[in-house]
């Protein structure tokens, strides 16, 4: 495995909004604390989703992105993953990236489970491995058995979640980017999945994870980064950052 790193220098990300009645947004000041900053430049409305973000992550670091809804956690992950282009600043990523975002969405209900596996393998899989290997791995892990030969539309939500999370966590990468819930299925499957993700982490050099679940974050991460309205409030050890986050909001929504 090669050494991997992520380096962000003075990143700004400005997302243009195209709404028919853009100007009306500015009559309301109700969402002051949620989301990035809404701005209006020459009649064009945009969100400053990330502002002046700089940090470096090196091999072996597991970073948790913490912040309330719309603070920019997912946006930052997508920026690191190369899905969003930075408006200003420089992103330098070394190592292969594995994104685990919204795992279920790419699955077409008409495909059978096996076809899904094959399709995902063609698009994102390791070209050195056969898709049969992946299929075997997923079949064993999900315990879906003969159901893999049926179209996904016949699956229950839990079965579908098992399939998608198993496919998403099958591929090894140097850098893992995980957004929110990869938690799926019942309790025993959750535990199994957690072991699988830990297995993935052993071969990955870096992890960046966004979640609201402190339990999940404590399970995987060592460092924390607190985001608020697209700005970095604090970087430090996970516990410090979680404390700061809790004190800034009150403990109310930090159960789980």
């Amino acid at each position: 495995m090669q050494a991997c790193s992520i380096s962000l220098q003075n990143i700004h990300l400005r997302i243009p909004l195209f709404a028919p009645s853009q100007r009306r947004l500015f009559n309301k000041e109700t969402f002051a604390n949620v989301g990035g900053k809404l701005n209006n430049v020459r009649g064009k409305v945009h969100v400053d989703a990330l502002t002046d973000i700089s940090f470096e992550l090196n091999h072996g670091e597991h970073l948790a992105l913490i912040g309330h809804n719309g603070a920019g956690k997912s946006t930052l992950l997508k920026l690191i993953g190369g899905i969003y282009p930075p408006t200003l600043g420089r992103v330098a990523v070394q190592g292969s990236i594995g994104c685990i975002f919204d795992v279920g969405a790419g699955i077409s209900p008409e495909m059978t489970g096996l076809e899904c596996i094959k399709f995902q393998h063609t698009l994102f899989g390791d070209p050195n491995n056969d898709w049969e290997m992946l299929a075997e791995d997923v079949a064993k892990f999900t315990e879906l058995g003969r159901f893999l030969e049926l179209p996904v539309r016949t699956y229950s939500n839990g079965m579908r979640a098992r399939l998608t999370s198993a496919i998403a966590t099958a591929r090894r990468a140097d850098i893992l980017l995980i957004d929110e819930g990869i938690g799926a299925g019942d309790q025993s499957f959750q535990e199994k999945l957690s072991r699988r993700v830990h297995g993935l982490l052993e071969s990955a050099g870096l992890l960046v994870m966004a979640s609201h679940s402190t339990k999940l974050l404590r399970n995987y991460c060592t460092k924390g980064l607190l985001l608020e309205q697209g700005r970095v409030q604090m970087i430090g050890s996970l516990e410090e950052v979680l404390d700061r986050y809790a004190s800034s909001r009150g403990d109310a929504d930090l159960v789980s």
Partner: protein
Amino acid sequence: MSLVQPTHPSNIHRFVDELLSIFPESVKTLVEKPLRNPHIPISLAWSEIMQSYRRSVLGPLWITLNLVIFVSCLTLVYGALFSVQSQDYAAYLACGMMVWLWVSALLTDVGNTFINYAHFVKNTPLDKSYLICAAVIKQTLILAHHLIVYATFVLLGMVKLTVYTFLAIPAFLILFLMSIPVTAIMAILFPRYRDLSRLIMSFMMVLLMVTPIFWQPNMLGGWRSLLVHVNPIYYVIEFVRSPLLGKPVDQLSAAVVISMTVVFWVVGAWAFRRYGKYVVFWL
């Protein structure tokens, strides 16, 4: 679902390397990844076609049947209206329609590429050039289904094979080449300007009628023949249809189509490199 794997990977790779070295950087962003991993766009295109026809008895053969039904019904009416031989008219109409369906897809369907694949664009690092190529390969697969109709015509002797017929191969190749940058342009414009697809849609029927597909270009006399000659779609149709019907390609059509291809490549490759990364904000 079978994936095409290069038989001699090393040779293919060397060929691709050499091919890429002569392209400018902007063209490379559009073609490099699909050329190196052709199985990705092929499998995207194939699975899309298979899925839209899943659970139907005829499956993708519906593409063929659609053309058959269209050509038979129109031949019945228009063959009589224009009092031409039904056989000739059917062949003329079918060949014209095959190209028209491709061109109309370039004006409408392919523009929705990123919109249809929004999940990939928004959630995965899958390179957008794969999606562009997948859209063009999908058109190729559709054309392959249409060619069944053409092959039937040849077997029935309704179309005569001549030396010019072979020109259809480079003609299709150029059409394919032209489609890649056109798809890139349309796929970037459509998500950004959501009215554009509606606007074009409302002109499609008119375009089909004013382009010589149901009728011969020489039927329009006098100043009205201008309507044919300023229409770029006419040249594209003529460029592919003539060899299919066993006739020589006229030089003007070839010149127009080839220049269009060059211009589209310059604009399309630039647009894709410049604006491709912003598409994610427009979905």
